């Protein structure tokens, strides 16, 4: 049997398949791709383990580089596909590896090796990309958007086994989307397979991935699974560090923190990035092996946006995972925390937001606010509305119109891009009801704005003087509502707002004059 594996999770799948489904004496070849640097770095250890008869390291990154080059030159996808298949054929020839007539297991099938197999119509067993991803094509595609050719070929070739060459689909049946019932699906649950392995074989698997020690868990330990966001080009490394420190501070409960970096998160330096002592587990092992190298149970296993947390239900009392919106709105976590403190001070039972209700709910829970947050694009159904930066299409005019039509008790603005989103130039009457709450985060200053006509709520906003500790980030968020005593600040603010209003009104009158003029000309 010939296995093809790309990432560490894929390698684990191949190892488990080899150990669980194939007789010991059967020949097995593991084809690794050098796109994944861990495969190159740990090749010797993989070979020494003796699980596979032969391990071949394929320089597939050259083929991908060619594909990227041709993509930049705007060559048609078909041309790129054929060229990559030709190159892949040459590589296999160099390695004296013939796929014809062989039993193939591909994990995954949307890289050049998979394209080659599809082009030659070799039958293959398709292993799923991640736990439960087989049926979640939207998730797969969202991860693939940066690579245009790959995304196009994904649909055209029917990757993830959606083609007639895939004779068997190996996936975790319990974690597939509801209603998914492909007849070719064979249950291939990594967690179950690991559990079923004899102790000796399990040790062999652990040794294969370099797991040498067992970690004892303190009570109430929290596990944070990271992702290689910098490596994927989603954000710079310092931002990735900041993201996870803020994540740990504002979205995770207090308790000893253990970090398991993604196997590709090789650049992350969490010991240095976190201002508190944290335990960082070896990055090279797949997180699925965690239950076999820790003693105890985590109170929570959390990930920002990952499938791996799904397999940890047996080692964690609870799991926490958000969707891809968090990659955009994590910068507003301090604003979310400030809003949660205000909600708590005001004692609101319910609020509606156009932002990330999951993140906001979790922040509220941890900041002690008992407010139930729901999401509604049109912000209907509650007395308290929270405007977020996730909705960038709403103009100040629409926001002002909304506030006129729906007289809510309180509106909270967390926007940074549009700081005076409530003001469209005409609703000057709103000024007396606006209460900005400045947030001092280190040497950075941000602001959230509360708009309410109720005296008690305005007073709550004015007198909000709180500090939120961010121990992992090494900072504090100081909330200081502008109290009436701060006359100078108010005086300057009033002057600036009046000047802003005048400027806006000048634009509006100019716009009206222009419209009238063009209307007259049209007549």
């Amino acid at each position, binding site marked *: 049997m010939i296995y093809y594996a790309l990432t560490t999770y894929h390698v684990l799948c191949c190892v488990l398949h080899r150990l669980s489904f194939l007789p010991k004496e059967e020949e097995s070849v593991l084809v690794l791709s050098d796109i994944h640097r861990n495969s190159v770095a740990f090749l010797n250890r993989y070979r020494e383990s003796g699980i596979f008869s032969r391990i071949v390291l394929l320089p597939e990154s050259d083929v991908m580089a060619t594909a990227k080059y041709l993509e930049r030159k705007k060559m048609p996808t078909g041309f790129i596909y054929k060229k990559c298949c030709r190159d892949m054929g040459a590589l296999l020839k160099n390695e004296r590896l013939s796929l014809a007539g062989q039993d193939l297991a591909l994990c995954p099938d949307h890289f050049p090796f998979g394209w080659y197999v599809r082009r030659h119509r070799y039958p293959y067993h398709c292993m799923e990309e991640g736990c439960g991803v087989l049926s979640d094509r939207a998730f797969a595609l969202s991860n693939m958007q940066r690579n245009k050719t790959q995304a196009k070929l994904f649909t055209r070739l029917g990757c993830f086994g959606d083609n007639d060459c895939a004779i068997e689909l190996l996936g975790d049946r319990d974690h597939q989307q509801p209603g998914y019932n492909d007849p070719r699906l064979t249950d291939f649950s990594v967690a179950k397979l690991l559990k079923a392995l004899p102790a000796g074989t399990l040790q062999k698997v652990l040794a294969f991935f370099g797991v040498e020690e067992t970690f004892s868990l303190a009570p109430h330990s929290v596990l944070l699974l990271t992702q290689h966001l910098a490596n994927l080009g989603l954000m710079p490394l310092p931002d990735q560090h900041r993201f996870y420190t803020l994540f740990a501070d504002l979205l995770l409960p207090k308790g000893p923190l253990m970090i398991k970096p993604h196997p590709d998160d090789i650049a992350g330096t969490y010991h240095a990035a976190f201002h508190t002592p944290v335990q960082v587990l070896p990055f090279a092992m797949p997180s699925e092996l965690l239950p076999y190298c820790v003693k105890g149970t985590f109170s929570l296993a959390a990930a920002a946006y990952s499938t791996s947390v799904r397999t940890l239900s047996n080692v964690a009392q609870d799991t926490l995972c958000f969707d891809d919106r968090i990659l955009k709105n994590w910068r507003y976590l301090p604003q979310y925390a400030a809003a949660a403190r205000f909600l708590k001070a005001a004692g609101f039972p319910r609020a509606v937001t156009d932002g990330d209700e999951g993140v906001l709910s979790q922040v509220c829970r941890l900041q002690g606010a008992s407010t139930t947050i729901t999401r509604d694009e049109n912000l209907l159904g509650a007395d308290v509305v929270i405007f977020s930066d996730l909705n960038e299409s709403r103009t100040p005019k629409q926001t002002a119109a909304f506030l006129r039509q729906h007289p809510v008790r309180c509106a909270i603005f967390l926007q940074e891009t549009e700081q005076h989103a409530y003001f469209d130039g005409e609703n000057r009457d709103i000024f007396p009801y606006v209460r900005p709450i400045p947030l001092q985060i280190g040497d950075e200053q941000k602001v959230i704005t509360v708009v309410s006509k109720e005296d008690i709520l305005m007073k709550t906003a004015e007198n909000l003087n709180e500090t939120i500790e961010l121990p992992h980030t090494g900072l504090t968020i100081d909330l200081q509502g502008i109290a009436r005593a701060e006359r100078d600040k108010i005086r300057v603010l009033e002057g*600036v707002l009046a000047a802003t209003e005048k400027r806006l009104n000048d634009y509006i009158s100019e716009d009206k004059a222009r419209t009238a003029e063009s209307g007259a000309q049209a007549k």
Partner: protein
Amino acid sequence: MLSRLLQLRRKIRAGYHRRMDRLVRRLSMSRRMVTDAYYGECDRQLPLWRRGITLLLLCAAAKTGRAFSHRAQPQERLDYTRKTPLAHTESHTLRRPGYASLAKQILLHDVISFDIFDTLLFRPFDDPTAVFYLVGEKLHVPSFTRYRVLAEKQARQKAKERTGYNEVTLSDIYTQLQRYVACDIEKAMAIECETELSLLKANPYMKQVYRMALEMGKTLIAVSDMYLPEDVIVKALEQNGYTQFTRIFLSQVCGFSKRSGKLFPFVKQEMGEDKRYLHLGDNPIADRVRPRQAGFTPCLYLNVNRAGNPHRCADLTALVGSAYRGIVNNRLYSGAYHETPFFEYGYAHAGLYVMGYCVWIHERVKEKGIEKLLFLSRDGDILQKAYALLYPEEQTEYLYWSRSAATRLTAGYFRNEFFLRYIKYKISRGITMAQMLDAMELPSMQVFLSNAGFPPDTVLTKENYEDIVAVFMAHWDKVEEAYAPGQRAARKVLEDKLRGVKSAAAVDVGWAASGVSALKVLVEDLWGLPCQIYGFVSGANYLHDQQVIEAPLLTGDIESYMFSQRNNRALRRRHRVGQLYSVFIEMMLASPSPSFLQYEETENGGVALRFDCPETEGYESIRQMQKGILTFIADYQKAFTQYPYMLRVSGEDAYHVCRFIISQPGYFRRFFSDYPVNRAVGTFSHKMETLSTLMDREYQR
């Protein structure tokens, strides 16, 4: 007939002169050196053909970048040819590998080897010999730098003759130094080591790389060709957080250097032949060619100063210049930060000026025993922030003030200022009486103007200027009456701020010190408050009257930091107001708030502030600029904590750094073309000009 012919000849010649001047001005927009040299060397009495040839040669010289105005000093010449990159911001120019891609390289190797100086550790100088100035200062030896450099050179020559290698120790160098200065060797060596230790700081980019390698469990080693003793190098590494090196290989200990190509095979022999090695360093020969020959994978980390100096101002004093260039290069070219153009403008070009100005103000304050500093809006905003950063223990005030407010408040005293600012300077804009009175906030004057034959739609012209002024003079009581509430409110504010203060100083950017003068007249003469007002400006250069503040400069009531009629007059001459130099400098001190218009009395007797049209489009850029300035000051201050005298930047140095950038219009066109400029401050026009339109208009004049 003859006289007609002579007249015609003169006319033709005048036409030639005009055209020649226009050509020069057009060229001068992008080639400073041509303008400087042309105006500096070419007498207008010279024949046209000689001036034409000179201009042609200068243009050719500027094009090739090889010839210079023949009176320019070497450093000045560099400033003529050096330019800031325009393709990207400086911090993006070098395209160093990202952490993620470097991490992948590290993953594939067993031993990670680092060069130490200019790779793991940075000095806050672009030239390592600048450290010797500080050592010489501690030893009280003039010319110490020259002696120290010579001694090292000679020590290396001797070592080469003796051993075949030019590797020396600090002790060898100081033994040689005895030929020049008979100082205590042990003490001098200790001082040099101590100075080096106090200056060396971790390179943030390499620190991250080091951490990555550490977290991956790799073996870390450091390799250097340095003469400093091993214990000093170890201490320098440790105090900067590099504590986990398995071994440190020094050329002076091993006996051979990286450059010779013998150190790397030795390292391999010591650490294990079968391992995979990655070496990171800044020297193309010693850190790329040599390790490659020894089977290491080299990863060249291009020297930050080599990359950054072609874009840095060179014509500065040796010590401050080296420090300025070193600090800027260390940040913008280290690869750890990717900044916006606005941040870089603040960091690389405005930071030194703001810091130097604040330190200079502080010294003046102490010298004159000034009790309170008033930073005038809006330029004072960043100056106050910088001052607070440098001297957090001192109390300062931010005073809302502007030319417009000052003009109205002192209208009864400086009448011509009032007429100039609100009438004469607006003639070119072709505004009407109604618009003019609207800006003055004197609608009641319309009746008198109409009676005098100037209805609201009359356009302001040169011809009717004096007549309009006459109407104002005839009804001056109405003007004073209209501005009286504003005066009362302003007085309240100043009385509050100056209560119990006997002397205060107002800080402004420049150029005619009109804000300071107005404040002085109001406080000392018109209101008679018991407080003496001094003024500090960064430059004194007023287009319409170069001697505008001659007497206050002489009495010391007003002092200028960079240039004035009294100090650095050569700089003042080269400060070309017509080429928007003042505008670009004012941009450095911009504040993310609207211009202040006037103090107003509220119904309950309080004071309200009125602002001009807010240029909100530029506020984010301004915040970035301010952040850049403050970051530079923090970095500089941190680098020279033990050397406070390093913060004393001369006005000439500060101006050279500013001039280096403000004389490059291409830079502003490239990065600041959309920057909003409100040239009609005080008239509340909601229409904003951009910098590029302003440049187009001003340069065509």
